[in-house]
């Protein structure tokens, strides 16, 4: 139950990060969305033994962390959350795949371990890039990008309202949880007989609250549209930002940079 308090904190934390005023924060959200998606597709498109090719991809998060002034440790901590899933599903790789794979010259490794490590690197890179997107962009701008690419109004509004109501609801749950634990002090978790009534109560309360909020919105002139003041135009810097990243991604995808650098340096 402690993680409910945590998630309220998480949401606020990422919200606050996204309020900063840096180069990356000021890039058009649509461009950032495209760059992030391309990065993820690029990362997962590498072959399962291709650790070396993957390495240059680390440059993208490093630059965004610094230019966006995003603290590293909190994001890294959140990134590790997904690791158990990937570790669990990938553990069969070293067991099932006993092929010998040549790394360089005469240095070989069991393919399963290589692909396991590649999988872990890929999952860390993809998760970090998604978290960096939200912590440099924020929900409002994501929504702005969504409506700009003509995603249906219902979906956009649903997305925004769900996000807004989460903190309302989490507070409600904390209240219920406090009340319950005060009445049942020595109990671990919620007794199964109370699950239905407690969740049901929460639901009905939320339902009523939603109605009141809606009435309030209508009284203030809500008719299904959100109006924004900010300018959504794509500027030159936005396009440059996008083009530069895409060029970098293409470069990294088509040339094995570590191998190339190595050959140049050693003259082989």
């Amino acid at each position: 139950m402690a993680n409910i308090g945590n998630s309220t904190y998480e949401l606020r934390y990422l919200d606050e990060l996204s309020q900063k005023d840096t180069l990356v924060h000021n890039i058009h959200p649509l461009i950032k969305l495209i760059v992030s998606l391309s990065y993820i597709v690029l990362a997962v498109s590498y072959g399962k033994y291709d650790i070396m090719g993957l390495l240059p991809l680390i440059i993208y998060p490093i630059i965004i962390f610094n230019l966006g002034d995003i603290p590293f440790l909190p994001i890294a901590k959140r990134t590790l959350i997904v690791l158990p899933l990937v570790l669990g599903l990938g553990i069969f790789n070293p067991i099932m795949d006993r092929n010998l794979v040549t790394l360089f010259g005469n240095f070989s490794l069991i393919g399963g371990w290589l692909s396991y490590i590649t999988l872990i690197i890929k999952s860390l890179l993809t998760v970090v890039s998604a978290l960096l997107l939200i912590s440099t962009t924020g929900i409002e701008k994501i929504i702005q990008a969504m409506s700009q690419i003509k995603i249906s109004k219902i979906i956009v509004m649903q997305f925004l309202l769900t996000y807004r109501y989460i903190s309302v609801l989490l507070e409600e749950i904390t209240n219920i949880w406090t009340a319950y634990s005060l009445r049942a002090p020595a109990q671990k978790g919620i007794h199964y007989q109370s699950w239905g009534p407690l969740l049901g109560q929460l639901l009905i309360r939320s339902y009523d609250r939603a109605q009141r909020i809606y009435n309030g919105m209508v009284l203030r002139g809500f008719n299904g549209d959100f109006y924004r003041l900010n300018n959504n135009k794509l500027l030159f810097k936005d396009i440059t930002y996008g083009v530069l990243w895409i060029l970098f991604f293409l470069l990294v995808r088509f040339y094995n940079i570590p191998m190339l650098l190595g050959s140049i340096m050693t003259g082989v």
Partner: protein
Amino acid sequence: MHMADALITPIVGGAMWATSTGVASYSVKKVQQDLDEKKIPLMGIMGAFVFAAQMINFTIPGTGSSGHIGGGILLAILLGPHAGFITMASILAIQALFFADGGLLALGANIFNLGFYTCYLAYPLIYKNIVKKEMTKTRIFVGSFLSAIIGLQFGAFSVVLETLFSGKTELPFNIFVLMMQPIHLAIGIVEGLLTAAVVTFVWNARPEILQSSSVKISNGVSYKKVMVILLCATVFIGGILSWYASSNPDGLEWSIENVMGTPELETSGGIYDTLSNLQEKTAFLPDYSFKIDSEAKIESNSPINGGTSLSGIVGILLTLAFATSIGLISYRY
């Protein structure tokens, strides 16, 4: 059971995105047709409700594993299938963005796994049929219990298929299925009981909430049309993204190889040939992963190629040094 980005290939991810987008646009159309304005904030709060409920992890007795509810069937029962699906999609999008649960590329797959089977399969076929005659407490309980379990079983199986088609892990099909289905049966039973308890509670306290969501049944947009559009979108996206296809045997080929003795099923003629020809022509990306198996053994017998090995190591070190210095420079900035 959220899929992660790293476990999925662009082809599978893209195809699932296309499919989920198709289903979503169908449900948006349906919601717009019979839009009750009051439903919009209700959808928002229900999304937040399920979002919060998904955070509570139950321990599954005797397995050491834990799971959380999907909530799709609860949404379908309280909001109707179309609004339920949209709500599910927005919950998963928020989770992917803010909590790194699931991923952006895997979002389509997750929406399909958790939203489609519950809202468009379990809800109309099971729940609806059970409560069709009359709404009683027992019928509602049984209906929501069964549809939660079955919806989750389909979702779990879908995760297995997507993982295998992606071939990022070496998990054999049968082992994976044997792992996933029973554990999700256990989770499904817990989810079923919980959903049933909540729905019957709401039925007792506020029967009108349940009635208002279940009056209308689909008419207008035909399923056939939607299915055709979905199919076209899937083939299109799959075709484009198969440029990225790796030539390493993937998980599915691997399991086929074990069963049949050959890595590919014998298929001939017609659309299959056309498609594989097309794929050969469009696959322009060079496959430069490391050499595998027999080639590797031959190579290790050959004279040591010190040059390549050295340049590999130097290259890796240089890349890392480059990355670090870029980090330092941009930090200054």
